[in-house]
């Protein structure tokens, strides 16, 4: 869906991010040295950059100044948690600031939000006989329009954006119905059932034992 560059000197972290990004359909490029980053950015022209601050070569803040002219959204992903650093990062023009350790779903969600805001997220999602137009909020199955309720569509969008990753019922409730929703996790099950039957996704939306649901798409 989007090309994302990970500038991070810890291979453990950059591999982890790259793996997760690939799972949900993004393309990931890793770079572990600040002094080489700008050259790579020029060659790849990514849609978004995940930037660590404490990296060899050039630190993240310095790098940020050099990235600014390219007009590429940047999210800081760092162990520096002080307010000063956050303010510096955001002042320099970063879209967001995530402190390590992070939850993967949080990083993916924030990436989506930033991509959406910067109009860089993919708007049409296709697999097999299904086409989802995220911008128009319409779904076509075998070329014919399928009517979905708002909540059903939102659930489908979250599953698509986090495809191949299992999401717990509680997480889904939180993401779609909001924190203050007092309903039960049964609501999620009902909506998943409806999505499965309406869009012929019985074998794609998997129930993961003791975890939740996962949309499995292998490209």
């Amino acid at each position, binding site marked *: 869906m989007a090309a994302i560059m990970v500038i991070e000197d810890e291979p*453990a972290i950059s591999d982890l991010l790259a793996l997760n990004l690939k*799972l949900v359909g993004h393309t990931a490029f890793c770079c572990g040295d600040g002094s080489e980053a700008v050259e790579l950015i020029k060659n790849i022209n990514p849609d978004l950059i995940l930037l660590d601050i404490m990296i060899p070569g050039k630190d993240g803040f310095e790098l940020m100044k050099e990235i600014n002219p390219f007009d590429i959204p940047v999210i800081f992903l760092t*162990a520096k948690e002080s307010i000063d650093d956050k303010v510096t990062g955001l002042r320099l023009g970063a879209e967001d600031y995530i*402190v390590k350790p992070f939850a993967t779903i949080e990083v993916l969600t924030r990436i989506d939000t930033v991509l959406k805001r910067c109009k860089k997220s993919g708007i049409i999602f296709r697999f097999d006989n299904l086409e989802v137009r995220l911008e128009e909020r319409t779904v076509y199955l075998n070329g014919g329009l399928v009517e979905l309720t708002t909540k059903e569509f939102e659930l489908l969008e979250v599953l698509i954006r986090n495809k191949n*990753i299992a*999401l717990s019922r509680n997480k889904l409730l939180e993401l779609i119905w909001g924190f203050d929703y007092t309903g039960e996790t049964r609501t999620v099950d009902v909506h998943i059932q409806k999505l499965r039957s309406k869009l012929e996704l019985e074998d794609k939306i*998997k129930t993961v034992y003791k975890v939740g649901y*996962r949309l499995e798409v292998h490209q």
Partner: protein
Amino acid sequence: MKFWQKAFICVIVCFLIGFDITSYMIVRKNYEMSKANEIATADNEHYTIRKSLTERILSASQYYTSLNPDNVPQYIEPYAMYYQTQKIYIALYQNNVPVYTSFTGDLPQLSDMPFVFGEKYVQFRNMDGKQYLLIASYLDNLESDFVFVYIKDEENLVKHWQNSANYAIKIGAAVSVVLSVILILMLLGLTRPISILNKAAGEIAKGNYQKRVTIKSRDEFGEFSRIFDNMADNIETHIEKLSHITEEKQRFIDNLSHEMRTPVAAVLGYGELLKNADIGQEERLMAIDYIINQSLRLQNLSAKLLQLSSMKEDVIKMEAVYIGSIIERAQNTLYRLIKEKNIVFEINLKAEMVIGDIDLLESLFQNFFENAIRALSQNGKIKICSEYAGDDIIVTIEDNGPGMPQSELQKIFEPFYRIDKARTRTHGGAGLGLSICRQICDIHNAELVITSEPEKGTQIQINFTTL
């Protein structure tokens, strides 16, 4: 109230008391003298009048056998008339009854004036609110009992006294004003150092530790200002040292949090990935490897941190230790690494023993050897020498590895600093080795000097001072 104000009030009060007492004494003395003078003059006049009056009465009585009391006033009147212009009044009593008086007020009773024949009665007396000088005596040589009283109006004397007193008060006031001005100027000048010191102390209290006073005088203020400046110097250096320590601590904490968060984030992320994601066998293995690897890193970090903090508290056992046995123990611990790279040790010990804790010294040598071995390529060489330098013992550890540039050399003692990040981390190095080494050297009062030249190698000198 400020000091100069207090001093001012004290001086002014002392001056006024002194001045007033002196001027009162002078005026008083003057008055006494005038009074004595006045009495002498009056006594003279009294004598003259009495004398001639007596003669007049005596001569008159020669014509008559006895003195006609009715005639007495006429003898005396000319005198009375004459002296009245000078505000002198006279009175005559015969047998205790007044027979003549030129005095307009109430005459005093004779019984109030106790005196005997041949004596004089002299007194200042207040009559009808005015001051008078009274002189009374018996007329001599007369058969009859005549008393002559001389009364002089002394208003002038009183006025003179009052004028003098007023004058003294006015002078006092004028002098006080002049003195006040001079005194205030002098006190302000004298107490200027106090206000300078005051201001400086206030500035320092506010946090401006660079403030100094430098009062160049030889009195107590000059001395105090020198002491004050010394104190400020000390405070400044202390504060600088403290803020330096705080900065260092903050940097340590920043680095530590980075060092801890990264493996935690990795373990957490891969754990989540394994639980939630639909991934292949190969990726699954990679995730598990990372989890194990990063957990080891955390374990290593906590062990090193524990060592660093426990060294600060432990009571260290100081004893004579063979340098050779320290080297041997360190080599044994690193046996596998040494064998892997086939490292050659060249040992030349002129000094054999140092004073210290064997476990800590082993840890010190082990850290240095480990760093050297990691830097060295296959078949590298480590040279160890020890020698006496006066009372000190110098141990040198030298390798023929790639060395490092000057810019790196300055940073190597910083906690968590690694020259080659990627490589050390795969060994699980925490970046605390040299911090621990420096700590151990500090405990042993040993100086640690590291020199290095790119392409030639690194030299570590440990100077065990016999303190």
